[in-house]
């Protein structure tokens, strides 16, 4: 079964990617607590209730807020109708690192600091569990189909895409809101800073895509943003400093997708030296790098999703193949290959 992307919804500190010209990136303003310097990248003045209304939004944490906005945008962008006729077949697959490090840590902190350790806020309990954002999105948009949260770290989006493709192929759903989210918080800002010895900064964002069976989209005469050619996941320890291993994984991905290196126009990676070397080895110098880190920082699971969003918004080249690569220090590696059609066509693929 071929699988298509039919809609995209993004919210991150970049005004162009988010489609909001007035958006400001001002991480230092977002929290009162001390942050590393530079702080990172975060949406200034992100007000969940202002964006989503007061009903059912009182307890949402930042990750849930980002996810809900991006999900709503993707549904609208895809012109996907979700109603009682189909909501049991429309679901959501969300990649993340830890759900919300802050929410879980806040809960833990209260049990350590409160005179009575159980005096935590019950309304915040869902936020402390990894599937909180996905469940809030399902509630808000009435998505009763498959609802899965995947903890993939830097692989979060590729994992979500792979899971979505497999889930559609097995007929568990007819449409899946598929994406990833990472929120900017003091906890993540400091974690990113400390683990990288001050070299890296945390970012945030959510990007969600409507993913559906290709044939159904074609038959419905609906617009297709991309076709997913392949999405894979493997475990190959020792990747961190090994461009050769990364290059091998890239080649395997191309082979699975049935494309050659020459077909590929854009590549999104973790943007480390090893990544850049692997990309150069496999694709040479002619490929466009979907570089997010300079402008958006380390976006964890959301990075791959934001890279795809960037690839989709690029005006050219027409009929471009996009490759996404993500990996974790332990050695999990994920790749996705998509074809983005020319703007004049409603379907992709050769």
């Amino acid at each position: 079964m071929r699988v298509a992307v039919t809609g995209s919804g993004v919210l991150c500190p970049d005004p162009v990617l988010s489609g909001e010209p007035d958006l400001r990136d001002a991480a230092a303003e977002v929290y009162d607590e001390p942050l590393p310097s530079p702080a990172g990248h975060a949406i200034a003045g992100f007000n969940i209730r202002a964006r989503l209304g007061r009903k059912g939004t009182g307890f949402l944490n930042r990750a849930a807020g980002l996810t809900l906005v991006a999900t709503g945008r993707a549904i609208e962008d895809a012109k996907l109708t979700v109603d009682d006729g189909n909501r049991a077949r429309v679901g959501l697959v969300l990649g993340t690192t830890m759900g919300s490090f802050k929410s879980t840590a806040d809960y833990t902190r209260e049990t350590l600091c409160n005179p009575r350790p159980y005096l935590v806020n019950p309304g915040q309990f869902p936020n402390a569990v990894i599937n909180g954002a996905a469940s809030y999105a399902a509630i808000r948009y009435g998505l009763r189909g498959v609802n899965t949260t995947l903890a993939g770290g830097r692989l979060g989006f590729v994992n979500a895409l792979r899971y979505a493709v497999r889930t559609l192929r097995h007929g568990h759903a007819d449409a899946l809101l598929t994406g990833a989210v990472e929120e900017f918080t003091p906890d993540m800002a400091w974690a990113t800073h400390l683990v990288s010895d001050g070299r890296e900064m945390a970012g945030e964002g959510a990007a969600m895509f409507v993913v559906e069976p290709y044939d159904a989209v074609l038959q419905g005469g609906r617009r297709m943003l991309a076709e997913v050619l392949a999405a894979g996941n493997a475990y190959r320890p020792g990747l961190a400093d090994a461009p050769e291993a990364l290059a091998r994984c890239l080649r395997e991905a191309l082979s699975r997708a049935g494309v050659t290196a020459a077909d590929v126009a854009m590549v999104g990676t973790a943007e480390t030296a090893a990544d850049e070397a692997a990309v150069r080895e496999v694709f040479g110098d002619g490929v466009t790098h979907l570089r997010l880190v300079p402008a958006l920082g380390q976006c964890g699971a959301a990075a791959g999703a934001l890279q795809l969003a960037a690839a989709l918004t690029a005006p050219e080249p027409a009929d471009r193949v996009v490759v996404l690569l993500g990996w974790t220090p332990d050695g999990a590696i994920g790749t996705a290959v998509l074809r983005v059609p020319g703007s004049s066509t409603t379907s992709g693929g050769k």
Partner: protein
Amino acid sequence: MNRVVVTGLGPVSSIGIGIGDFGEALRRGVSGIAPIASFDTTGFPHAHAGEVKGFRPEEHLRRIDPRGWGRAGQYAAAAARLAVADGGLDLDDLDQADRRRVGTVVGTVGGEAPVLEELVAQEVAAGDMTAMSPELLRQVPTCRLSHAVSAELRLEGESLTVGTACSASNYALGYAFDLLADGEADVMLAGGADTTCRWALAGFERLGSLASAACSPFDRDRQGLLVGEGGAMVMLETLDHALARGARPYVEVIGYGLNCDADHPVSPNADRIAACMRLSHERAGIKADEVDYICAHGTGTPANDAAEGRATREVFGEHPPPISSIKSMLGHAMGAASALGAMACTLAITEGFLPPTINADTLDPDLSGLDVVPNHARPATVRIAQNNGFAFGGNNAIVIFREMT
């Protein structure tokens, strides 16, 4: 599509480590509940749990160094080792398995909660987030649970961690099933892991969901759940691969169903649960009256058991099959719970007995008609077993097992 079978079982649980001890404990209706020992429970009104006793990582782990991994990852890796050993799979023998086609999916609620707690303790002690240890920060990402299994067994296939809360290991089993059916893998270690932790105990306490010292699912006077922990990994394999290496499958996985309440963040929805049951039957190609045993989600909370009981009667009619809750013995092992249920289903089928719901005193009159196998296991012929998993966030997942034909 390949047929998918269970060939190995690896429980690290509060009632036993290893399938021999676990199975024996299920038969005897052993309770794994005791006062919480793994952290200071001063100030917690309810502090009993189903904790794993006597777990020594060095007894189970041959490759990964426990000092580099959190306890949840250690549980997952140890459980995976047990499952592989139980299934007699020699991963070093290329004739038996191609590592690139052996993967793992691990479900969890809290991930590396003990590591997170240590990080927060560091920050609280110093009053400063810069006090968080970079080494612990490297150990805390939730994806490390599946990486612990992949690293311990040197697997090169898929390594995925699923965070769908209390039903996560059923999601893991389901996804592994799909990969194997498709031929994307030959063997999958699927299950879940969690540890007891302060924030979950506090959260459930605050919701009023906790029982004091005994968990009595489906009972009229049930108070709530007891938190638990453990690692539970099931080795799933394509039937062809199992037969080719001379393995004897336990049971077959014939299908699974997933849906989402999309209703309330914590309260379960009986209608959606019923829909998930029907979905799982449809996907498994069976009718409701073919189910011989249901391993309940059965947390023992008033809300869950009422919803699950109502859904069961709606789907199965006036005389549902026996439905018991092993959480009565284990407590709620969170991410490992559904996989432990899968093991109970497997043994129910292969050994012909129904695990009991212990601490059963008076059946809830609203659930009359349910045979909860009160207090004592009993012999039964079980051909098809249904394994329920429900969760906060309305993450429902049900897996269906059938005897080998």
